[in-house]
């Protein structure tokens, strides 16, 4: 049986993994390669790295870091941040990342999804999206897409955008709820489920994981295929093995051998 994936997310700022809440209060957590190895050895199914200062500093993704991670772990990982065109995607993939994540860039230029999928295959192109609860009449699902680290509202409906991105060739969609992000109070299940039921590609729940039952809800109630964890594991409050133990007890299929 295909297992549900647990994906630690590492936000990298100036070569260090940091954790903040809604882009504030950044705390230094450690070296990206050392953390990647520790999570891989501890049973993480996949990793995602966001080079969170790349776009603001108008520089490309830290390729040295991507290559160092690729040399050190043997599980798939995705990279986001600092990608502005197909040649940036190619550099990230050739350095050894399995997937490239695009977010604000794809809102500005949706064609990047189609171009990336054509060049590298849909499985390499991940659409990240930051929906927020909204009463904007242009957003019938009740969720609006934000960009640039939640700073800009786009007037785009989150479910419509997910469908369009999947049509364009996104191989996977990460639904990162602005409302839940950093709260550790649980995933935003409504928008996660709406998107999981609307698109034919895997959906990754993101934002709000604080305890294993939150992941069980994302899988069992919102039908996510994978879930991102950050604070709950970075702080040492939970290990991946503990999360998987609890998920297995809740009837969620998880990878047991690593």
């Amino acid at each position, binding site marked *: 049986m*295909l*297992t549900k994936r647990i994906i630690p997310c590492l936000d990298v700022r100036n070569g260090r993994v940091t954790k903040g809440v809604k882009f504030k209060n950044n705390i230094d957590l450690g070296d990206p390669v050392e953390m990647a190895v520790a999570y891989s050895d501890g049973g993480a199914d996949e990793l995602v790295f966001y080079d969170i200062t790349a776009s603001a500093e108008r520089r490309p993704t830290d390729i040295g870091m991507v290559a160092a991670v690729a040399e050190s772990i043997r599980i798939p990982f995705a990279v986001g941040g600092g990608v502005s065109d197909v040649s940036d995607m190619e550099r990230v993939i050739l350095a050894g990342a399995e997937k490239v994540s695009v977010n604000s860039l794809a809102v500005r230029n949706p064609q990047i999804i189609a171009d990336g999928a054509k060049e590298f295959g849909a499985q390499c192109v991940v659409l990240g999206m930051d929906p927020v609860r909204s009463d904007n009449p242009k957003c019938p699902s009740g969720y609006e897409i934000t960009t640039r680290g939640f700073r800009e509202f786009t007037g785009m409906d989150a479910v419509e955008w997910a469908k369009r991105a999947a049509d364009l060739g996104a191989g996977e969609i990460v639904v990162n709820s602005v409302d839940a992000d950093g709260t550790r109070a649980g995933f935003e299940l409504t928008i996660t489920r709406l998107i999981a039921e609307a698109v034919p590609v895997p959906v990754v729940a993101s934002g709000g994981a604080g305890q294993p039952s939150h992941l069980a809800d994302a899988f069992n109630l919102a039908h996510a295929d994978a879930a991102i964890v950050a604070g709950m594991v970075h702080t040492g409050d939970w290990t991946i093995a503990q999360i998987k133990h609890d998920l297995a007890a809740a009837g969620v299929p998880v990878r047991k*051998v690593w």
Partner: protein
Amino acid sequence: MTVIVDYRAGNLTSVKLAFAALGEPVEVTNDPGKVRAAPRVVFPGVGAARSAMDNLRELGLVEAVKDAATDGRPFLGICLGMQILFAHSEEDGGVDTLGVLSGQVRKFPSVPGCKVPEIGWNQVNGDAEYYFVHSYYAELGPWTFGKTEYAGVEFTSMVKQGRLWACQFHPEKSGRVGLELLKGWLAC
């Protein structure tokens, strides 16, 4: 020394890095002569069956790859590199492939709750999980060594016929169990 066949079917970085982690020297090539002379051959691949076959023909690699897979040398097909060892694929409206194995490659049926492509870790023979990314699968047959279930279908996830090994999953991205599989192949 292991030769990795490069026929423009996907990124080979992970395959190279996995063998590097095992201390095995590799050469990446699209030269049929080098494939013929290789002591052991890895035949990876991500992408579509038709363009893969077109590339193999264009590069003059078809016979060299078939010989490597059938003349008793250690041979390892990965993902699309396993699928095109079979006789025929339903992909792209139907494509005749290498025919080293006689079976068929089919598309996963559409089943509620099962996204296609299958992406993630799935069990082989009910035991350890390996990392899969695929929309098509090879049917079961006498070639089946590893069996996996997805979308209501049981399919061939691994072939082992003497020194001809092939896997639908990606051992190079399957953590420790993947490296152990590659180590086993290097010793065969």
